[in-house]
């Protein structure tokens, strides 16, 4: 609770939290919020490429679908992709980091060298290669993103575990006979939680951006899905006439990523007062 109060005292972080909460609400209630929910799949060629109006606040796309509805419906897939990719990456990265940080020996060494290999190529390039080699599609893109994001968690948790391993309270726990799983799960992990949380929040924004690029390049979501990146790609053939077509899906990406980044920034300040911006 104190942490939350700290967070809300920073207006910029509060804005980030508000944007993220707004996106989650939109994602949850998307089919009820969208003015034309059936526009996820149906096309109406008679009203294609109409500029923004009272009837269609964001205009219509090349198949006559309401862009506002599709932006709202696309929020759900963006949030679902971000959450599942980051969770999956955590499930791989956190145990690897804990183990490699706690134990010495060739297993730990190997794990961290594997992490290095994954970090030796920019994430997007690796995700593209992975996504292409497994049949392209949204699921593949998500697997590829998770497989390329876990090393970031492994690094973070490894560093935290290494730091805590030498702490006095950990020695004391070992002294009174606490088992290794108990020390790691009940004592080390909670202490590493703030760093993991910050990494996860920033990872959400990062994942949404990368997933949008994959969708844009045709390695992610497939038509007629109301994916934001895909919409921007489809819009390219209708420029400069239909300026509204790429503008609004792109703004949606911007606002959601901005929300996660601002929130991540604010959380970092709360988690680690040494890095506090306001100083």
């Amino acid at each position, binding site marked *: 609770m104190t942490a939350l109060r700290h967070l809300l005292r920073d207006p*910029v972080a509060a804005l980030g939290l508000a944007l993220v909460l707004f996106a989650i609400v939109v994602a949850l209630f998307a089919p009820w919020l969208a003015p034309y929910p059936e526009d996820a799949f149906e096309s109406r060629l008679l009203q294609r490429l109409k500029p923004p109006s009272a009837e269609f606040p964001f205009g219509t796309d090349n198949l006559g679908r309401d862009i506002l509805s599709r932006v709202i419906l696309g929020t759900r897939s963006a949030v679902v992709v971000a959450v599942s990719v980051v969770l999956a990456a955590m499930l791989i990265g956190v145990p690897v980091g804990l183990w490699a940080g706690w134990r010495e020996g060739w297993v730990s060494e190997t794990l961290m*060298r*594997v992490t*290095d*290999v*994954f*970090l*030796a*190529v*920019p*994430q*997007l*390039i*690796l995700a*593209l*290669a*992975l996504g*292409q*080699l*497994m*049949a*392209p599609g949204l699921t593949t893109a998500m697997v590829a993103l998770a497989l390329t994001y876990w090393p970031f968690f492994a690094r973070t948790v490894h560093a935290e575990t290494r730091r805590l391993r030498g702490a006095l309270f950990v020695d004391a726990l070992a002294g009174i006979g606490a088992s290794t799983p108990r020390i790691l799960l009940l004592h080390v992990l909670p202490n590493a939680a703030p760093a993991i949380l910050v990494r996860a929040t920033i990872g959400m*924004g990062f994942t949404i*951006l990368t997933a*949008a*690029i994959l969708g*844009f*390049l*045709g*390695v992610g979501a497939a038509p007629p899905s109301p994916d934001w*990146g895909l919409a*921007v*790609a489809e*819009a*390219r053939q209708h*420029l*400069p006439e239909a*300026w509204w077509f*790429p*503008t609004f*899906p*792109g703004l949606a*990406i*911007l606002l959601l*990523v*901005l929300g996660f*980044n*601002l929130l991540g*920034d604010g959380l970092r300040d709360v988690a680690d007062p040494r*890095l506090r*911006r*306001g*100083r």
Partner: protein
Amino acid sequence: MARYILRRILLALPALFGLVLLTFVLTRVIPADPAATLAGDAATPAQLAEIRARYGLDRPLWEQAVTHMRQVLSGDLGSSIFSGRPVMEEIVFRLPATLELTFVALLLATGLGVPLGLLAALNHNGPIDHLARLISVGGLAIASFWLAIMLQLIFAMDLDVLPLRGRIDVALGAPPTVTGFFLVDSLLAGRLDLLVDTLRHLALPAVTLCLPGLASIARFTRSGVLETLQKDFVLYAQAAGYGRVRLAAIYVLRNAVTVTVAQIGLLFGALISGAVAVEAIFDWPGLGTYAVQAILSADYKALLAVTLVVGVVYAVVNVLVDVAQALIDPRVAEQVK
């Protein structure tokens, strides 16, 4: 210092070796059958078998791994299964275009980001500071492909002041190839018109690409300067009567900028990633466009070669960055021992 540099290079080797292995695993263990992709849907089993034999896909896995390793080490990344030309040749031909674009973007990012971060820190909690924060958070949140399209829409389509796509005007033609960098080559040929045209073509893609870099450089410079300003030697210099400008430029910036330099290595990865989408949008004839074409034509040989080359370039840049950091701040090299 020499020992530090050598050590840093040796440390980069295992990761590169792992990368070569990883690219092999990617092509062989992941199910999509490359032979089937190559032959198309209508292929007969006999044709499939012939293709497998020609590309060595019928050999045992370990044998393929050894062959893969040997080929990569000798610089042979195979032939594109689409065009039939050696992949390495196509990459070498395209690499300068990508490097030129990323270097110009990096230059813009550093040239604008460092002063912005410095001004923000000196103007702590003032209007410039808030502006810098907006730029640094917004710059990281904006999707490069979207920004590229928006800039095209405004500056190339509506206002018609900058070219829409390409690296140089086709009517003018490329300068005679010496380095492959058009900026350098046009100067060497003494053709100022080509230089201007190259710059005009560079403007939009470079600005798009530099934004995330500018954002993080400004941010790290700002926090580095703020931290340095707390140090005793700054207080001493202030007490000794140094002016603000001299203090900032000589004492603070050099100490603060080591953090920023370390950041540039990481940034380079972001730049290369960004270049994929940005190049595809601006029809920039570099590695990014090549990678996108490889994806569209399911040319896994080309895609893996791009992954490898990017990995090597990335490793080289990171070694250079670490060395630069050690040169600016000798304590970095000391710490490693």
